[in-house]
C-alpha cells in the first residue's frame, strides 16, 4: 500500500506536485502522460533518488520520505534495464540477496525458471537481447520481494511484436508474485493488460486517477480525454461464437467483435467514437453491429460535434461527427437513430 500526500519535488527547472495518490495492496498502477510530464522523476522520488521539498510518502504504513533508497524496499527497473555490465546474469539477479548476505542459489534458479532465462545465467548482459535483459532486470528487482516495484517504460525498448508476449509473461509473473507495482508507460495496452489503476500526469501533476475503465470511459478533463483519445468502454459477457465473430452481450444487446475471448467471461469492449456511423434508417453495409438508441445530448467541442446516445437498458455510446454530417442528417436531441460499427472496430480490451 502506497500513500502519497502533498508531495513536492523541485529539480533544476522541473517541478512535481502531487496532492494525493493512494494505491492499495495488490494494485497495479499505470502512469501515462506526455513526455516531460515528470513520470520518471516521480518514480525516482518514490525510490528515493530525489529528496522532496515537502510532503510525505508512506509505504505499508511506514513513512519512507526521508529514508535513503537502499532502506526503502522499493525496487526500480529502468527502460534500458541497467544490468551491471561487470556481472554475469546470475550475479546480477543474485546481487540484492548477496548485499543482504542471504542464500541466493535456489532463489535465482527458481526465478530464472519462471522467467525462462535459465540458460542465460552464465552470460554477460552485453550479449543479451532486449527481451532477455528485461526479464533479467525484473528477476533482479523482485528477488527480495520488495514492498513496491517501479517500472519505467519496461516494454518500450522491445520491438512491437515481442511486446505482447513479454507483457503476458511479465504480467502473469508479477500477478503470482503479488508485488504492488507502479508502471510508467507510453503504451495504453499496458494499462489494459497489466493495470487496474490508471493515473494521467501532466506538468508534474496527476490530473486524473482511478480505475482503468473509469478513466478511459470518463476522462473528466479535456486534456485527459484528448490524451487518452476518449473511447467507449462497454462491459458485457461473452455468449459464444457466430461465424468467426465473438458475440458479447452488453445490456441485453448482442455486439459482435473480431477479437476472441472464452465463453462466459466478462469482458470490456472498446469502440472509438469516430468509428461509429449514425443514421436515421438502418444502413446496409459491412457494419455488423447496429443498435437503435436515443440522442440524449448534442454538444460542440472545437470543430467537432459529440453525441451521447442511450437506450432505456443503460447502454450508452459517445459518437463523434462533423458539423456538416449533423446538418445533412438533421439530427436533434431526442431523435432515435441507429449507431452502426464494424466488428473489426470493436476491441476486447480486457478479459475479467
Amino acid at each position, binding site marked *: 500500500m502506497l500513500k502519497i500526500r502533498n508531495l513536492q519535488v523541485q529539480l533544476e527547472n522541473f517541478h512535481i506536485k502531487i496532492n494525493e495518490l493512494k494505491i492499495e495492496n495488490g494494485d497495479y498502477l499505470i502512469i501515462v502522460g506526455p513526455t516531460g510530464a515528470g513520470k520518471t522523476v516521480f518514480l525516482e522520488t518514490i525510490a528515493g533518488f530525489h529528496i522532496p521539498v515537502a510532503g510525505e510518502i508512506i509505504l505499508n504504513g511506514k513513512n519512507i520520505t526521508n529514508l535513503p533508497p537502499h532502506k526503502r524496499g522499493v525496487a526500480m527497473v529502468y527502460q534500458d534495464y541497467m544490468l551491471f555490465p561487470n556481472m554475469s546474469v546470475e550475479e546480477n539477479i543474485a546481487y540484492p540477496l548477496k548485499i543482504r548476505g542471504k542464500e541466493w542459489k535456489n532463489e535465482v534458479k527458481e526465478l530464472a525458471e519462471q522467467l525462462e532465462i535459465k540458460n542465460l545465467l552464465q552470460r554477460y548482459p552485453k550479449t543479451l537481447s532486449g527481451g532477455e535483459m528485461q526479464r533479467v532486470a525484473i528477476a533482479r528487482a523482485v528477488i527480495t520481494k520488495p514492498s513496491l516495484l*517501479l517500472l519505467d517504460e519496461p516494454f518500450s525498448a522491445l520491438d512491437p511484436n515481442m511486446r505482447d508476449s513479454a507483457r503476458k509473461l511479465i504480467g502473469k509473473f508479477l500477478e503470482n508474485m503479488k508485488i504492488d507495482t507502479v508502471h510508467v508507460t507510453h503504451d495504453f495496452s499496458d494499462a489494459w493488460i497489466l493495470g487496474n489503476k490508471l493515473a494521467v500526469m501532466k506538468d508534474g501533476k496527476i490530473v486524473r486517477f482511478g480505475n482503468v475503465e473509469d478513466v478511459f470511459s470518463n476522462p473528466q478533463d479535456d486534456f485527459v480525454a484528448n490524451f487518452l483519445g476518449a473511447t467507449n468502454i462497454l462491459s458485457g459477457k461473452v455468449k459464444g461464437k457466430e461465424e468467426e465473430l465473438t458475440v458479447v452481450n452488453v445490456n441485453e444487446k448482442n455486439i459482435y467483435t473480431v477479437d476472441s475471448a472464452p465463453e462466459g467471461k466478462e469482458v470490456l469492449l472498446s469502440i472509438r467514437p469516430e468509428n461509429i456511423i449514425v443514421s436515421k434508417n438502418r444502413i446496409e453495409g459491412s457494419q455488423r453491429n447496429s443498435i437503435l438508441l436515443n440522442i440524449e445530448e448534442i454538444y460542440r467541442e472545437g470543430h467537432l460535434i459529440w453525441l451521447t446516445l442511450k437506450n432505456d437498458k443503460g447502454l450508452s455510446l459517445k459518437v463523434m461527427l462533423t458539423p456538416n454530417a449533423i446538418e445533412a442528417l438533421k439530427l436533434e436531441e431526442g431523435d432515435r437513430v441507429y449507431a452502426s460499427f464494424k466488428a473489426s472496430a470493436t476491441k476486447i480490451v480486457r478479459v475479467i
Partner: protein
Amino acid sequence: MKKQLFLLLIILLISIFFGSYVFMATSIAIFIIIYLKERDRKYWIFLILAFIGLVHPLLGIIAVIFLLLIMEQDNFYRLSYILGSLFLVFIIFPILNLLLYFSPQSIYDEALINAIIVSFVAATSSTLIALIFALPIGYILARKSFAGKSIIESVIDLPIVIPHTVAGIVLLLVFGTSGIWGAPLEEIGIRFYYAMPGIIVAMLFVSAPFLINQVKEGIKKIDERYEYTAMSLGAGRFRTFVDIILPQIKGNILTGSVNSWARAISEFGAVMMIAFYPMVAPTYIYFLYTNYGLKSALPATAFLLLITLAVFIILKMIAERMKNA
C-alpha cells in the same frame, strides 16, 4: 600496406642516422612478421625495399616515399604520412641514440640503483596516495554540478601549468623545516626537507591531476542510473561505489595511475627543490652531469631510460588490456 610503408619510412629515416645494418635487419624482421601474419604476397615488396635501403639508406627512403606517393591518392594523407614520420623520428631517434650508451655495468653503480629504488618507491607511494584522493574528488566532479565547479577543476589542473621549480619552492615554503605545515609535522617526526616524504609530496603535487582527471572521465561515462538501480536493490552508497563504479572504471584507474606514476618518476624540478637527497634517479643524473660531465652521465642515463621505458610499456599494456576486458 600504406601504414606498413609509413612504419618502414620511420625505420629507414632512423637508420640513416646510424648508418648501421641493425635497423635494416629490424625492418626485414618486422615485415617477415607482417607477412607471416597476413599471408599476403604483396608484402614481399618490403623485403625488396629493405635491400634497397641496405645499399644506401637514402635510396631506401626515396623508394618508400615514392611508393607512398603513388599508392596514396589523397594529398592530405600523403602529407600526414610524411610529416608524421618526421615527427616520430624526432622522438624515437634521440631515445635510441642514447640507448647505444647502455652498459650492463651500470647495475654495479650502487648510487644509481639506490636512486632508482628511491624513485620507484616514492612514485609508487605518491600514486597510491593520489588514488585515495582521486576517487572521491573524481566522483564529486563527475556527478555533481555546483557553483564554482569549473574553478575547482582549474585548481586541480594548476600543478600541470606551474613551472616545476616554482612548484618545488611553493611546497618548500609550506613543508620546509620552518614551514607552516612542515614545522609542526617535524615535531611529531615527519620531516619533508631532504627526506622521502618531501619527494613524495613533490611528486604527488605534480602528478595527481592526471589520475583525478582519468577517474572523473571514467565515472562521467557511467550512467548514474546504474547507481540508482543498485541503491534501489539495497546497496548503500559505499557498496554501490565498490560493486558498480569501481569495476567499471578500473581501466581508467589503471591508465590514470600509470600516467601519474610516469609523471612522478620523471619529476625533477620540484623534487630537487625540496629534497636533493635522498637522490631520485633524475637528480642523480643531474648530479653526474654537473660534477663529472656528459660522458660519465651517459651509461646511467641510458640505464634509467631503459628501465623506465620497460616499466612504462608493461604497465601501459596491462592498463589497455584491463580497459578492453
